[in-house]
């Protein structure tokens, strides 16, 4: 593809200082560790990983909600992190939006939903009262809600409807790129399906690009163009959707796929991968996944694998998959 990506992320790092127990020295938590990816116009990058793997921190740095410790983020050709260009974020701010996981907490309970949707328009200014109200109605319709419901308050809506309101608000300034941080995780399966379909329709109509965050590979399968799997702050595998689901290469991706519950009675889930995400303050030496990896060998405990391209846009960070690696399709 020759088109320039609209989002380019390189070597992005975020650390947080953490206070130890009384008397212990200050330490750092490495939440995001040298993450890099591109997002092209009109595509969706799915970002998947367990709780605490660094997904939200990555998404927040992309839209400038928090600053990066190091590394670069380039949006629509402007460096917003790492680059010296001051005010670059302001140039692209209206083209970026963020949709939060919890529609309950991201809407002000005392604000009518029409005003909540119009808030970004009001902040930007320049619209007549009439034009603003027309735009609110248009947005409500766009997300599948009655045009007339702008006078109501958030508590009068179900969880799925509140998420539609959050999406309408995100669309108000006609963004090009939206970070959706687990927009369906707090919804039941039928509302999840409706919201995923809505995001797909909007993408088609408006040419949007998404970074779509989830903790479950099944949830991002329909919406993603490509999928990146995060573990302990780093991307361990990234591939076009078809390749990732048909031929996952990283043992962690394989474990995540095996863990997806399926609506087939009597089919026991594959034995779950033991253990939990490691400490980010005192991470394991070598490959961060080695304490849970069924294939770990000596080198894994010493040397950290880098994200290496293997074939056709598929990249893996695992010592089994470097040039000359033996592969692990057996899991």
């Amino acid at each position, binding site marked *: 593809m020759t088109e320039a990506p609209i989002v380019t992320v390189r070597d992005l790092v975020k650390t947080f200082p953490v206070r130890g127990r009384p008397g212990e020295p200050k330490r750092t938590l490495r939440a995001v560790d040298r993450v890099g990816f591109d997002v092209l116009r009109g595509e969706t990058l799915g970002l998947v990983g*367990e*709780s*605490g793997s660094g997904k939200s921190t990555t998404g927040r740095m992309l839209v400038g909600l928090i600053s990066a410790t190091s590394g670069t983020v380039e949006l629509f050709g402007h460096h917003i992190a790492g680059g010296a260009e001051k005010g670059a974020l302001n140039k692209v701010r209206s083209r970026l939006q963020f949709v939060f996981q919890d529609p309950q907490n991201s809407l002000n309970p005392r604000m009518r939903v029409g005003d909540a949707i119009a808030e970004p328009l009001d902040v930007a200014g320049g619209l007549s009262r009439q034009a603003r109200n027309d735009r609110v109605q248009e947005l409500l319709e766009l997300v599948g809600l009655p045009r007339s419901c702008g006078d109501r308050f958030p508590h009068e809506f*179900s*969880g*799925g*409807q509140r998420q539609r309101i959050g999406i309408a608000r995100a669309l108000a300034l006609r963004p090009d790129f939206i970070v959706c941080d687990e927009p369906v995780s707090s*919804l*039941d*399966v*039928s*509302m*999840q*399906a*409706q919201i*995923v*379909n809505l995001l*797909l329709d909007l993408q088609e109509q408006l040419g949007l690009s998404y970074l779509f965050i989830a*903790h*479950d*590979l*099944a*949830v991002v*399968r*329909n919406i993603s163009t490509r999928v990146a799997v995060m573990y302990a702050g780093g991307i361990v595998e990234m591939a076009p*959707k*078809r390749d990732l*689901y048909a031929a996952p290469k990283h043992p962690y991706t394989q*474990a*995540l*796929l095996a*863990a*997806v*519950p*399926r*609506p*087939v*009675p*009597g*089919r*026991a*889930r594959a*034995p*779950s*991968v*033991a253990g*939990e*995400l490691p400490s980010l303050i005192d991470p394991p030496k070598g490959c961060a996944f080695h304490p849970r990896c069924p294939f770990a060998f000596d080198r894994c405990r010493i040397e950290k694998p880098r994200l290496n391209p293997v074939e056709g846009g598929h990249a893996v960070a695992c010592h089994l998959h470097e040039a000359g690696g033996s592969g692990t399709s057996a899991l």
Partner: protein
Amino acid sequence: MTRVPLLSVENLTVQFRGDSGWVTAIEDVSFEIGAGENLGIVGESGSGKSVSALSILRLHGRANTRYASGAIRFGGRDLLSMSERELRKVRGGDIAMIFQDPMSSLNPVLTIAEQIIEPLQLHQGLSSAAARRRAIELLEMVRIADAGRRIDEYPHRLSGGMRQRVMIAIAIACQPKLLIADEPTTALDVTIQGQILELLRDLQREIGMSVVLITHDLGVIAEFAQRVLVMYAGRVIEQAPVAALFNRPMHPYTDGLIDAVPKLDGDLHRLTTIPGSIPDLATVIPGCRFNPRCREAMDVCRRNAPALLPVGPDHLSRCPPRAAARGAA
């Protein structure tokens, strides 16, 4: 059938006080669960799963709740007519409950030890040394590594999966006959979810308890439950053994729930959805409550409220047109 159920809920109707009078949250709900059995309750958000489960132990706020009709039989007695004092002995004793969010049911200012030891002393009269030993044993049973040390931690130092294990340890402390688990894995990662379900199954075998598992995810139901209750808008709309429910669903709403589960195979683009959303409690829908969302609705569905009827072995459904089409019963 002559099976004597451990618990049977009979024609339960529960109402809450609303701004303009009482509203009905669940209506005429009946089900039973045998000793050592796994019952799954599934339905969209707001369908009445938690209201049903919380009613078993009368955990709704007393001032604003009315158990308008029905009985809940457990060990030959009706939990609905028991005194509050007697019921307290059942709660955390023979019947235990765990919730979706372990952080909201664990006390943040008490250590894990303090929270497990208290029920042991209360229900089993153990000395504090014996209770501590038993507490460590329980944490080991829920596979918490290094239990002897972790027991003195505060909840916020544990991961979500560990907290849910602690909740399970507290719940099984008194060897309950019945464990009610309301979305115990919904807030957890799929890998941890798998570990917790595995743990529940192992514990069930070890101590022979029955489990009521509530979830909106039919993937979890398929994996865990033996019998399934499907709820919609406060009513049971289908009840079946798990294999029959998936292989021969007898209600269009059940079809919709099965189709909505995100899958690893099948159509790569749009997902199948149930159009619309669950009505709120105050909305009156004549006839079948699902009819505004049902692709198979007919005129009769808008007139007559369908009854829950047998459609196969141990299989009930509240959709007469589907039953007729499939030639059931």
